[in-house]
């Protein structure tokens, strides 16, 4: 169940000051901050892989957490989080039996899934490999792509098994995402990782693949956490069926449009059916093959906006509209907070870096004085300098580690910001479904009035009766089909509304839990690390205290 080996070591590494944090250092010293931020984000997600060693001093923890200690001489909060700093690494995970004292987000995720049921569905992504597309291309090697090994472990009965291993490429994930979007309109479906054509060219191949596989894992995990999607067939098939991707791709928009364009003249001439079929109604008009339907709905939306006539069915759910406003607000604040969080992280990083450089400069000075010393007083000074320098270097490392943790926690802001995309998508599902209903209703009313007209007029042309009756029959036919379509559309609209409602509730509660945990995690880390930093400096102050007496 472990992800890449490196990442499982990462939380262990950060506590041992002696070894070089090669993983962290490489990641955190990327050239541009924005690119490194993405890597930091993936660093954050990579820790989700690792298991949590149980804490030795668990019981002690609940006290400092709830009842802050006044006397630093007794075991402080710091000591528990950082049990022996200089020997081997050990993380104390602060978790109480009933799960309320969480810090690390691994616990959060486990917590959430634990709460819902005893069912689990764990997915990991690993082992990226290059494969060649068997095509008749002249240039060999030009059609290579990367596949990822997707390992699933579950006890859900529908899966008919407990362990699965399949190979998938990124294209397959795109297909999965598209299919889910089609089947689950109205739900807040987690957005999939970007295609990022630019990044794949710019970044080193290995880095890019690493980044992508972490992103994929994150995405799949989010899918497995969604209460409805985790039960979906599409996901199950994606995770379990061996060989080539079993889900057929929805054909891309361009060819759909071309298809539609080809059909349109026939529709207009009446050769092919120009009505909106009931089975089509469950998909939005946009991006579909039915251009005529697209035009009709477009016309309807214009009528909605400009026409004075009140529609029989409008978005009347006040609660929904209120919630929508609130979510819009939230999105705005989230964006801002996420940006400020990034700035904060950068400032912390810079602080750590400069502190480290200062320490190094003093170490050089110390060495210099020691080598060149002629008088005893210079040796004394060198000792003082060394104390400060060593502390500065240690503190610098602490800042770096604090930052890694901070990123992990504050990244939740960023995540929820991403979720807003899913929310907007779900809301647009709703409004397009509503538009379909409205279009059908006005179709119906125009059909009805046509039929009425036909019924009341008598044929003035000899022999015209037959064609009139024929036309009437056709109209009645059309009305029936359109009625069916309308009921379908109304049902679909209702379904989407229900989805929206349940999702909003779920989002609210999950977001609140997430944010509370984020705040707790962030604050706890700040407390732990700044306390440790304070101790380091207090030691130096102690060691140089003789100067204090002289200057008073």
């Amino acid at each position, binding site marked *: 169940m472990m992800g890449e080996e490196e990442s499982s070591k990462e939380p262990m590494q950060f506590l041992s000051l002696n070894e070089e944090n090669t993983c962290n250092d490489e990641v955190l010293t990327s050239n541009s901050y924005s690119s490194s931020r993405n890597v930091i984000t993936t660093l954050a997600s990579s820790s989700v892989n690792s298991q949590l060693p149980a804490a030795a001093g668990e019981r002690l923890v609940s006290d400092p957490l709830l009842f802050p200690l006044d006397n630093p001489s007794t075991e402080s909060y710091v000591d528990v989080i950082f049990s022996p700093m200089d020997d081997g690494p050990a993380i104390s995970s602060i978790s109480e039996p009933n799960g*309320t004292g969480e810090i690390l987000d691994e616990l959060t995720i486990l917590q959430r899934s634990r709460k819902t049921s005893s069912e689990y569905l764990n997915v990991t992504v690993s082992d990226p490999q290059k494969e060649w597309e068997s095509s008749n291309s002249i240039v060999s090697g030009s059609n290579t792509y990367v596949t990822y090994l997707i390992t699933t472990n579950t006890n859900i009965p529908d899966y008919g098994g407990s362990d699965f291993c399949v190979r998938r490429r990124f294209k397959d994930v795109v297909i999965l995402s598209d299919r889910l979007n089609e089947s689950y309109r109205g739900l807040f479906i987690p957005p999939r990782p970007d295609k990022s054509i630019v990044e794949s060219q710019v970044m080193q191949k290995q880095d890019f693949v690493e980044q992508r596989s972490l992103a994929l894992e994150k995405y799949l995990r989010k899918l497995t956490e969604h209460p409805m999607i985790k039960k979906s067939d599409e996901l199950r098939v994606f995770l379990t069926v061996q060989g080539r991707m079993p889900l057929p791709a929805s054909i891309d928009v361009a060819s759909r449009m071309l298809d539609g364009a080809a059909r349109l003249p026939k529709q207009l001439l009446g050769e092919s059916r120009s009505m909106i079929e009931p089975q089509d109604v469950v998909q939005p008009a946009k991006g579909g093959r039915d251009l005529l339907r697209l035009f009709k709905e477009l016309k309807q939306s214009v009528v909605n906006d400009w026409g004075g006539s009140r529609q029989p069915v409008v978005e009347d759910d006040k609660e929904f509209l209120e919630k929508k406003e609130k979510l819009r607000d939230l999105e705005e604040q989230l964006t801002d907070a996420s940006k400020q969080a990034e700035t904060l992280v950068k*400032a912390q990083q*810079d602080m750590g870096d400069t502190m480290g450089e200062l320490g190094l400069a003093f170490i050089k000075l110390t060495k210099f004085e020691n080598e*060149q010393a002629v008088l005893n007083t210079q040796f004394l000074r060198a000792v003082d300098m060394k104390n400060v320098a060593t502390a500065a270097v240690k503190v610098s490392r602490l800042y770096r580690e604090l930052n890694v943790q901070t990123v992990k926690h504050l990244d939740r802001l960023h995540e929820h910001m991403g979720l807003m995309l899913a929310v907007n998508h779900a809301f647009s599902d709703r409004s397009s479904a509503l538009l379909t209903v409205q279009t059908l209703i006005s179709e119906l009313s125009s059909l009805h009035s046509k039929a009425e007209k036909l019924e009341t007029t008598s044929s003035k042309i000899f022999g015209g009766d037959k064609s009139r009756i024929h036309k009437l029959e056709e109209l009645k036919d059309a009305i029936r089909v359109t009625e069916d379509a309308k009921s379908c559309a109304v049902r679909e609209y209702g379904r989407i509304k229900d989805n929206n409602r349940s999702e909003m509730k779920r989002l609210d509660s999950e977001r609140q*839990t997430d944010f509370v945990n984020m705040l707790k995690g962030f604050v706890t880390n700040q407390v732990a690390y700044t306390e440790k930093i304070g101790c*380091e400096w207090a030691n130096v102050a102690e060691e*140089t205290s003789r100067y204090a007496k*002289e200057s008073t």
Partner: protein
Amino acid sequence: MNALQRSGSGSMAQSPRSSTSQAPYLTVSVTDPAKMGNGVQAYISYKVITKTNFPEYQGPEKIVIRRYSDFVWLRDRLFERYKGIFIPPLPEKSTVEKFRFSAEFIEMRRQALDVFVNRIASHHELQQSEDLRTFLLEDEQTMERERSQETGIFKKKPADFMQIFKDVQSRVSDVVLGKEKPVEESNPEYEKQKNYIFQLEDHLAEAQKHAYRLVKRHRELGQSLSDFGKAVKLLGTCEGNSLGKAFSELGAKSELLSIKLQREAHHLLMRFEEPLKDYVRAVQSIKATIAERANAFRHHCELAETIKFKEIDLNKLRLTRSEKLADAEREYEQLKADGKESKRKFETIVKLMNEEIARFQEQKTIDMGVVFHEFAEGQAHLAKSIAEAWRSLLPKLEACSSSLETPDA
């Protein structure tokens, strides 16, 4: 401000707090910076308050008004008169920043000037200087007159001085590189000392650079905490109920911490970075003394050369029994006297420098010890108060999360 002990040479062993008039004391404080004049002519004036029981000072207390160029005058006079002694350094001239006159700049300058005068006042030789008395006692017009007289070498032959300085540097590096130049001391111990001073300046400058950056980082972190706090508060308004409150409290704490960081940044600037800069300046002042010593040595050597040639001439004249002999003999005697004098001057410088370097090192160990101690204390205090502030939020966050666990209506 207990200036004597902050910058004291130690050799006087005086306690200015002793109110008994037996123990001699001389303390100065530079205070009350005030902006004078307008536009390009603007400058800062300082109140210089002298408290002493030295007999030459005719009174226990005197207050005068001085400006930066008066301090420069004092430094130049002392430099010329007390060759071999490390004259305390002055803060930079900074012609550009002067126009901005930020509060921070003024305060740093005032502090540095205060330290400057007190170091002079506590140096066993410098404190006897007449120029110091002029500086501390004369009224402003007299001071201005003195300043404009400018007999110091800085005004007269600035080019020459720079040349001497450059010569010393190149000579030192030549010796370091192994090239021997004739007119230079070949004292290995002294070479080591010179080498030490030059390298020390580089190391210190680097440390000071990072110290300055550290100040900036504190400011930046403070700013980002403030912005973050505001954003978090706004985010809280979207949530409502206990979570919203938690957010707004966190935001408030964050803003509070921002203030602490800004304060520490200022503290670091004045008590960590500035002393390091002062250390660098002191080393530069020593370099100037090194140049003086080289100057004196060269002068002495040249004189010795001249005397030698004169002796040869003299003997020639003696043999030829020329009338010029008497004049030549007089000149020769004069040269010999000058030679003796230049030798004495040089040897004084050497002796003084040896004493000074020992004193300097002792003093610097103390100075830096204090700086480090205060730095560590400041950082420890900051970190601990940050930890405390965050910690105070934990119970509320805990309550918040448990209220979310229990499903409410």
